[in-house]
């Protein structure tokens, strides 16, 4: 069985709003997955069910050998860390060090372990220089990295990042890529929600597409971004380079910059009359 299983899961908010409608998915340990889809497709609700912040109103969410029905949020969140979409929903300490150390304290780590985990988290998020700074003196895009460091310090097997690319600049996106790469190498299971298709193509092995409270399909970026039926259903577009390749009829399910430039070069050279 997969490490994470969602089996016919639905979620209805109090008041009767159905946010997720009978979805099933399986995620293996160590996978690096992106979830894409429109605002309101059910992405955030789905991932909040993975760490027990929300409980399915129907179906089962199983992480390892734990069914979320039988465990508290405290128990679930030892295994699954969730980085909020809005860092201000998460941050509440007056220094970055304390903020990032909070989770490790909850997990009853020793002082020595805490220090090691926090230093590591600050290092890979490039925040070491700010350790004694008040988070609210830093811009939104940096606060997002604080909320990411706080989860990394908890050292959970599964880590969920909810729209980390929102509002990031070039440097921020590159830093996110390097954080994901680091964690992937350590064997973490990574689930990221993003609206940035270029970021998705360059950082994830598998993409889950959601639309209208349901899972539409899942697969490698090269499959997903050339599956026009799925894209239309989920109101998503191909990455810019793929759109160009489609217009130019270059074929080959191209999704990256490098593939595109190579395919163009090949096509031009093929036209050469020697």
């Amino acid at each position, binding site marked *: 069985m997969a490490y994470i299983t969602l089996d016919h899961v639905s979620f209805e908010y109090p008041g009767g709003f159905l946010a997720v409608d009978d979805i099933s998915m399986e995620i293996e340990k160590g996978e690096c997955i992106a979830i894409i889809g429109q605002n309101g497709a059910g992405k955030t609700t789905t991932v909040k069910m993975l760490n027990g912040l929300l409980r399915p109103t129907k179906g089962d969410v199983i992480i390892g050998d734990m069914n979320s029905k039988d465990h508290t949020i405290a128990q679930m969140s030892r295994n699954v860390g969730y980085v909020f979409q809005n860092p201000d929903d998460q941050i509440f300490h007056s220094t970055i060090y304390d903020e990032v150390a909070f989770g490790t304290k909850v997990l009853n780590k020793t002082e020595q372990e805490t220090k090691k985990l926090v230093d590591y988290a600050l290092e890979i998020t490039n925040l070491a220089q700010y350790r004694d700074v008040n988070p609210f003196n830093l811009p939104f895009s940096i606060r997002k990295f604080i909320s990411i460091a706080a989860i990394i310090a908890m050292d959970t097997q599964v880590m969920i990042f909810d729209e980390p690319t929102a509002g990031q600049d070039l440097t921020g996106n590159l830093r996110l890529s390097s954080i994901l790469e680091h964690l992937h190498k350590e064997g973490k299971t990574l689930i990221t929600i993003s609206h940035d298709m270029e970021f998705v193509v360059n950082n994830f092995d598998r993409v889950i597409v959601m639309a209208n409270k349901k899972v539409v399909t899942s697969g490698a970026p090269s499959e997903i971004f050339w599956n026009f039926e799925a894209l239309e259903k989920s109101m998503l577009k191909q990455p810019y380079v793929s759109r160009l390749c489609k217009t130019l009829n270059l074929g080959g399910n191209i999704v990256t910059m490098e593939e595109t430039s190579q395919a*163009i070069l090949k096509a031009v050279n093929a*036209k050469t009359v020697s």
Partner: protein
Amino acid sequence: MGTVVEFKNVTYTYPLSEKPAIKNMSFKIEEGKFYGVIGENGSGKTTLCSLVRGFAPDFYKGTLEGEVLVDGKPTTEYGPGELALKFGYVFQNPFNQISGVKDTVFEEVAFGLENFGFDPDEIEQRVTDVMELTDITAIALKNPFELSGGQQQRVALASTIVLKPDILVIDEPTSQLDPEGTESVFKIISEMKNEHKTILLVEHKVDLLAEYADEILVLKDSELIKAGPKQEILSDISLLKKNVQLPQMSILGNELRKLGLPIKNIPITEDQAVDIVKSHLAKGGKS
């Protein structure tokens, strides 16, 4: 077309801050044009927005050297609230903009018009139209604080454009929107341009600026390092080295150059890239 805003050697420092947030900046904003403001986080983009509409130094205090002229008159010489009629501002974080005193989206969007004392019939008509335009009619009766980040961003945009200001200053309105929603916001903004509004838009999504904007301002470390027509700025590959994001098509043009294809002009949009590649396909490569 006249100059509506002019920065003359502007340096601005926030109170209690040692370093200026804006350093020695000079540029003009022409009436009816769409300006994109790009640059790293922390480079001064939001402060620029505050200076343009006189919010700095009037509200934030701090020290202003040089002059920010609106219609030829320094912002510091305008009376309280005078500039609010001329400028519409959409906050980076919609949470900071939504009034918190209105229970429905409809009332929230109507709030500004009410304050300006418009006739109720006109308010209703304008609010209905703008909600249609920004695609929030379906959530008209919801509480603004019960909306998703993306929906709040649309409400914030609607609340501002309903006032029909001459100059729209918009700070990252699409950060939480999906690609479809983002594109629709760009379309709404360029429709404002057709109504002869002047637009200043802070945005990281350069691919869409390449499509919709007229001019680009590039900020780095509190300075204006580049300004001009989008074609010139967004095809300037040297900006990548300064951590400025460029459109995917510009990067592709540069990659093709590196591979030895003689790309004369770097494309910034898909249409331009298609034309360039087609012309190379027609010619073929080196024999």
